[in-house]
């Protein structure tokens, strides 16, 4: 077999051993510290089996993506699988070369713009819905069922219904009309459920306190409620962006002439599969990872800053602390 596979296996092996060590070491810590936890840290055979399952699962999860990453550097004469015929950036260049049939540039631009639009709409609509559910309203149960239905509605049926609907109206679907709507039926349930969870942890008396201190409705919203739920809104935005950016089935039937990136990739899979498909797959995966990392980092930094700047208000993870402060329990010092 090729050298690259050997290198890959070595990397995977090192990561697997590292993970195993990590799990073991934290077990040891737990054993040293725990009084009541003693029962849980017995290293039974089951523990080793489950650790093994986890490590194998991670390999199963990441190995194919790593292989795609390696194969995108295939030499110009290389094919869709090993062996590597040398290393090159040839296929990355081809992704951006307009003379090739599988031109991924415009689909990519469309996907990013669409994901940004979906992200903004999802965040705002979910936030507003969260506010409405906080107070309760007529038909709230019905709307909630609709949200859940939207979550489990067969994706391609939604897509097909929108497609036929546009056709009946004599309109052409496009990525910024039909596809946008189809994506929202997928991102909004996530957004709304996250906002409901966040608002349910937010003590109502906070706003009353703000009002008692003379804040207007707008001020209590802007300076009290919004800062507390803000990290949650970033999480909603992250879901909105990534779910839309990667969505295939809801897009597949309604993109019209302008394919989004996942649709274009699937279209190329059957007919004109070349290693440039792997190159674009690698780039879009790296792009997604950067977005995820930025999202997590933003939540983390804002939470930290919040914890430092405000002595009372906690961010989402520290919601409990906030409750304690209100009830007059001793306040933990901010880090």
């Amino acid at each position, binding site marked *: 077999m090729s050298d690259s596979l050997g290198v890959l296996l070595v990397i995977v092996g090192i990561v697997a051993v590292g*993970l195993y060590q990590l*799990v073991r070491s*934290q077990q040891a*810590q737990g054993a040293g510290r*725990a009084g009541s936890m003693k029962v*849980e840290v017995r290293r*039974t055979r*089951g523990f080793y089996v*489950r*650790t093994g*399952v*986890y490590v194998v*699962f991670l390999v199963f*999860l*990441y190995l*194919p*993506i790593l*292989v*795609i990453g390696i194969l995108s550097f295939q030499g110009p004469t290389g094919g*869709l699988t*090993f062996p590597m015929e040398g290393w090159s950036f040839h296929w990355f260049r081809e992704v951006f070369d307009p003379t090739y049939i599988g031109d991924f540039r415009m689909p990519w631009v469309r996907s990013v713009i669409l994901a940004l639009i979906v992200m903004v709409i999802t965040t705002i*609509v979910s936030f*507003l*819905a969260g*506010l*409405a559910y906080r*107070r309760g*309203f007529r038909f*709230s149960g019905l*709307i909630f069922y*609709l*949200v859940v239905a939207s979550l*489990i*509605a067969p*994706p*391609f*049926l939604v897509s*097909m*219904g*929108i497609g*036929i609907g546009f056709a*009946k109206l004599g309109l052409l679907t496009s990525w910024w009309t039909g596809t946008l709507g189809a994506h*929202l*039926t997928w991102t*909004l349930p996530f957004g709304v459920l996250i906002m409901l969870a966040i608002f349910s942890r937010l003590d109502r008396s906070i706003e009353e306190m703000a009002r008692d201190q003379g804040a207007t409705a707008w001020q209590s919203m802007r300076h009290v409620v919004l800062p507390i739920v803000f990290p949650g809104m970033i999480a909603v935005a*992250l879901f909105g962006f*990534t779910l839309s950016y*990667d969505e*295939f089935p809801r897009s*597949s*039937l309604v993109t019209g002439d302008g394919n989004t990136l*996942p649709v274009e990739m*699937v279209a190329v*899979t*059957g007919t004109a599969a070349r290693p440039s498909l792997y190159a674009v*797959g690698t780039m*879009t*995966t790296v792009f997604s*990872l950067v977005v*995820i990392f930025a999202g997590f980092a933003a939540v983390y930094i804002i939470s930290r800053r919040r914890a430092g700047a405000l002595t009372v208000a906690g961010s989402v993870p520290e919601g409990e602390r906030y409750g304690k402060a209100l009830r007059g329990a001793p306040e933990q010092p901010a880090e």
Partner: protein
Amino acid sequence: MVSLFHRFNNFVQIAPLTLVLAVFLVTPMTIILVVSFYKFTGFLTIPGFVLENYSRMLGQVFTYQNYWATIRITGITWAITLVLGFTLSYFFVFDIIALRVKILLFLLAVVPFWTSGVVRMISWLPFLGREGLINRSIIGMGLTDQPLDFLLFSEFAVILSYVHVFTLFMVAPLFNVMARIDRDLLEAARDQGASGWQILWNIIIPMSRPGIAIGTIFVVALTATDFTAVRVLSGGKAGTVALTIANQYANVQHPFATANGIVLLLVLLVFVGGLMRLVDVREQL
């Protein structure tokens, strides 16, 4: 006056969500239901109310073969994701104690959820083909001299891809319910002399039922309605309901496609409804 203001306020807050769902969920589904009763001549779709599309479909052996393939693929995928998802959740919740490590290991397993499912599906191609990694390895090791053909363009490849992409939908709800199980309960059971298997069977599994139900709904709904992996990875060998519907839609046989879709939706609804009767899912939401 104040209450009127509040009511208006609430209306403004919930209207966008309602509007989007009405236009892009309720309306399309209604259209599908209506079109499924339209008359279809083979070329033209004529508005009307006929049951022909349904009777034609239910009279074809092809339909039942489709359903059998769909149920088979969905069932196997479900069973694997359930066992795998349960084991992983158990590992996160009960085996790992330090919170930081728990979060790190959980995130490592969850991050691929936010990357492209299409890329993850495509990434099986270099593994499974006749010239792929697995065949080359086993031939290289001398285990066989013929490449294994069942790997790519088969149900095996489709199920592998589903397990790869959908296991996380089982892990998340199971993790959620297991994390709420009171540790003292397990310790008490142990003090009373229960074995590990008894604790698992009599406490953890019953208390995880809502999580199992939610995970099952996700995995079954996603698997039974997907046609992408079937199209790309089965090479046309696995004719599922969803693939047939997608093909009918592509051939502009809208009444056939919609009638087929409505039946699939009904089957799923009956399944989900039955599951909800067995397990109270709402307490978890």
